[in-house]
């Protein structure tokens, strides 16, 4: 019975070690490769730092009109788009407008409930943010592999642009 004892012990060992690992015991396990933070980790240029610095996790629920939050200069204003419900969660975009130009864009809410969403959006959101400042409108390309988020982003972005009157 020797060999079977070895196999049983080996199997139990493997199982115990497997289940000790953090991704093995709950659906929310695993450290995402990069965390979505409120501040745009991408390449929003110019006065991005001033305009969107206070959007850390603040989730204004339904459509809010232009919030007069941190207007550091007389003309920079932020506009929050509608909270768009997508298959994976809510997307909400905030744009900063100064002198009739969109100077920065960022997300207030983006699906981040599971690891896949976090991972996709960690690279998709910065790309979308920088495309907005380049295009200055909502006709931006979707990010491949993040079509659901991109779609929600564009719709929320359009509503923010409408509010800004651009």
């Amino acid at each position: 019975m020797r060999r079977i004892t070895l196999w049983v012990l080996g199997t139990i060992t493997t199982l115990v070690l497997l289940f000790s690992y953090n991704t093995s015991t709950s659906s929310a396990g695993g450290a995402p490769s990069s965390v979505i933070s409120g501040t745009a980790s991408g390449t929003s240029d110019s006065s991005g730092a001033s305009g969107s610095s206070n959007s850390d996790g603040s989730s204004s629920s339904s459509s809010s009109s232009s919030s007069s939050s941190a207007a550091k200069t007389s003309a920079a204003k932020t506009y929050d788009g509608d909270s768009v419900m997508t298959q994976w969660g809510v997307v909400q975009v905030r744009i900063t407008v100064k002198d009739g130009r969109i100077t920065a864009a960022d997300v207030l809410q983006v699906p981040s409930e599971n690891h896949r969403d976090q991972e996709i959006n960690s690279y998709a959101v910065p790309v979308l943010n920088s495309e907005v400042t380049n295009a200055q409108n909502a006709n931006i390309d979707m990010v491949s592999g993040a079509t659901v988020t991109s779609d929600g982003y564009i719709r929320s972005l359009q509503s923010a642009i409408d509010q800004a009157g651009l």
Partner: protein
Amino acid sequence: MTTADLAGRMPAPPASPQVATVPRSVRRVPTWWRDASAALLWAVLLYVTALWVGGGGLGDLGSVAGLLTSTGRLTGLIASALLLVQVLLMARVPWFEQAWGQDGLARLHRTVGFTSFTLMVGHIVLITLGYAAASPAGLWGTVVDLVVSYPGMLLAVAGTAALVMVVVTSVKKARARLRYESWHLIHLYAYLGAGLALPHQLWTGQEFLSSPFATVFWWGVYAVAAGAVLVFRVGVPLWRSLRAPIVVSDVRPEGSDATTVTVSGAGLAHLPAQAGQFFIWRFLSGSGWTRGHPYSVSAAPDGRTLRLTAAHLGDGSAALTRLRPGTRVLVEGPFGRLHPGLRSRRRVLLMGAGIGIAPLRALLEALPQQPGDVTVVQRAGSPSGLVLAHEIRDLAAARGARHVVVEGHRAPGRDSWLPAQAAHLTDAQALLELVPDVRDHDVFLCGAPDWMDAARAAALECGVPADHIHLERFAY
């Protein structure tokens, strides 16, 4: 060409009493069980495909990454559904077993297993490529990320390893080189593999993340499969064997090549055994008791005793000669579709070769019949292979059935159910000679696999409809 040309000598009958029997009621197998079980299989596959379509699977096919990931998800879903079916096929669920036969289920298990494995490999490759195409991390980075960061994925990798082990050892060449017991123990890792692969489906799989109902349903379906295994493979056999002791009451040689063992016990009254079925027997007599052997019941069950007759073909069956009365017995069963419940015509042909005649002798005893309804054709290579011939002769005489003995070694190089001295006939001609109206019979076959194939082909050629031919394979 007369019957006398085919008949050979019969061994002298030993002075052995016949087993007294009380006829039991015939339990028919409803034909809709087959349709229902096939519909269940189809429904499971349909459900996962609908989950995929509903989750946007078709729409995602637009981009390269989407195509890879989406088809990867579909292959994963189907592979998982097939794994579930695999577990259910081997769970010894009585309705499936009676509808298809243990051997039919085992052959299906083999096909489904290799299909599921291929789809699983496809799933792994497609998902990895799809995720890599959509992420800046590159292929290796994606692989590492998949394994260490996603919920349940490390478990899934271990589950994959277990399933690879199972499949590799089940390929015919590999399996032939392993002892049966070793192969079987490795095969049990398939349960682990299926179980370890389940969490990642529900915690990382998109179709389940987006639908709580699907998640609950999938856990539920897997729980049902696990429950079926526990109930029908473990619980019921233990209950049947242990509620009242079943012990060996008589061991008797049957010629030089076979042994008849009779077991008795109060618990036998509750076993729904029918004549011609088989059990998996474990005789608790020292070493080797963990190994179960399938032997057919060779006399009609009477509620108090069960009698099996087995030929000395391997270690297990040779050990039967050394069994002592009083030895405790564990049984699993009854299994098999060679019983009166499958009979649907008045006339019956029972054709058996070698030890395959054992379940047919039980059928002869238990089948309700008028004189002339039943014909028994007993085939053997030599007189010592004519097992139970005297009992069959006496039973046939008492019931007005015909008993024909066909003895002689097969002509070499020819796949035939006939002996060499009948080589001038084709299989079908000889069958028609023996049983001119065979096309109106139910045909029950039992013997070595090649012999049964030849006999079945002959019966088909004589016009017997395929669903009136019943056979049971013990090697698969």
